[in-house]
């Protein structure tokens, strides 16, 4: 195969990289910077924040629970397609899903026993 066949790909790579560099540079050079006090505060859906989150620290348990939430939450993404196709999959789908949930359950037991769910010490 001749190298000419790769020319469009080369152009695409150059163009998209150039666009990305250009937009990031342009944004940092051209955009006006007038910071007001309101802009500096955290956005909490229009409500004035009660705490200054830049200086105040969340307890580390907060991050731990948030991470555990993300990981267990995203697993449910597999439950939706199964629920939609439940009628067609019949017993086979049920057994497969039970195996999947058993694995999740093992992880849950581990987190529980390890004290990941205890808020207070």
């Amino acid at each position, binding site marked *: 195969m001749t190298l000419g066949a790769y020319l469009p790909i080369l152009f695409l790579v150059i163009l998209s990289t150039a666009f990305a560099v250009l937009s990031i540079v342009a944004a940092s050079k051209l955009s006006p910077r007038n910071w007001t006090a309101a802009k500096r505060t955290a956005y909490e859906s229009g409500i004035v924040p009660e705490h200054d989150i830049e200086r105040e620290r969340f307890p580390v348990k907060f991050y731990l629970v948030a991470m555990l939430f993300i990981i267990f939450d995203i697993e449910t993404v597999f439950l939706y397609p199964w629920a939609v*196709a439940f009628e067609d999959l019949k017993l086979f789908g049920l057994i497969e899903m039970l195996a999947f949930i058993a694995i999740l359950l093992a992880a849950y*037991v581990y987190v529980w026993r390890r004290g990941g769910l205890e808020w207070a010490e």
Partner: protein
Amino acid sequence: MPFVPPEIRLAGIAPEMALVVSAFVVLIAGTFARSRVNRVYLPALATIGFGASIYFAVSVWGENELQLSDMIALDGFATFCKISLAVFGLLTVWLGSDYLTRDGIEEPEFYGLVLLAVAGMMLMASAADLIVIFLALETFSIALYVLVGYRRRSIEGQESAMKYFLLGAFSSSFFLLGIALAYGAVGSTNLYGNSENPGLAQFLSESASEATGVLVLATGFLVVGLGFKIAAVPFHMWTPDAYQGAPSPITGFMAAGSKLAGFAALLRLFDASLFALRWEWRPLLIGIAVATMIAGSVLAVVQEDIKRMLAYSSIAHAGFVLTGVIATNDRGISGSLFYLATYGIAVLGGFAVVSILGGKDEHRVRLVDYKGAFYEHPALAGALTLFLLSLAGVPVTSGFVGKLVVFGAAIEAGYSWVVVIGMLTSAIAAFFYLRVLVVMYMQEPDESRPPIPVGRAASTVVALTAVATIILGLFWSPLIGAAEDATFFFVGG
């Protein structure tokens, strides 16, 4: 369209399942007992898991088929890799148990994560679909991110974990882009495919060459992702940092296991599935191989930290194995497998000695700390000498035979000039291995240091790997024979 349940045959992934089950048992059982009890029975549980895994892998030797909707290849190649990986994992667990006791950082997670990482690496070797390769790659990578940062209180450990994580996530996005483009070109992510279902190999055998431009681009991105895992230049930046900051048993495990897993996927993908595209990807891999051999060997010379030096040496070794990959002949594949298996044993042994001599919290890992090591610990220094000679490729060690077979395969394929570069860089590499030996034998220890505790499990690992390095250097034919039997990939029919 009525739904037909796929045929479920688990022989192909039984070794992985044994490891995952024992990982869960270890993790949950570990929360029920105190660390004094865990110290004994968690490594024992992990050993049982690896034993079961090896049993399942051996029992399917000689079979050749695709399983689980053509997602898993059950062939000799996968079996050879799985047995080697289980052995690496077993040595890591034994070495780790002494290491954790010495530093007082015993947690059940160590064993659980090593088991899960080996399961991911094994899956890498038998994946017959790009998405399975991706899932396997992420399974062992995520476990390794945590293991690299296992020494939570060490600043080096934290830093290396973060660098490894950021660069690893970056490179796996490129790998994923490669999968997406391959899917766009072929309409499927299967590596093989048949007349009913499309797949990469089947697509290439039928289509005209103009239609494969996107697939070639995809190949480039796949090389980036796998090149990162095998630590090939220019995707090697993480290697010295991660190797230095990780606990030594994990460093050895990464050097042995991560490299074998990455090469397993690379060999299956390029020498089997994308074989028809070899005139497109071979120049790329030759360039990477040459750059890797030169950069790894030259940069290793200036290192003052023994772990960083071994990291650059592992980069150079990735280049040597790549010469077997670009040969694209049976000898290249079996030679690469043999090289990776023997390199893994030698490097695990080397890091076992480094982890013992490092002392508590690994405070003695610089080259100057090895002054006169022979006079303080003759047995350990002797074993380290053997491992370094094997890495340098000196005759009577397994490393010599490994280099002989991969270089022989490359010459057979007509790439003598690559082999010449390989020989020259081997000579440079010999220099920095000898440098360690000079420090150990010819210099006097600075002052009398407190004796270093040597655990029973760790010394067993050193002894086993040392004996294996010698035996494979003298009687290599059984293992080479096994590797040659293992060169059959699944090919349709």
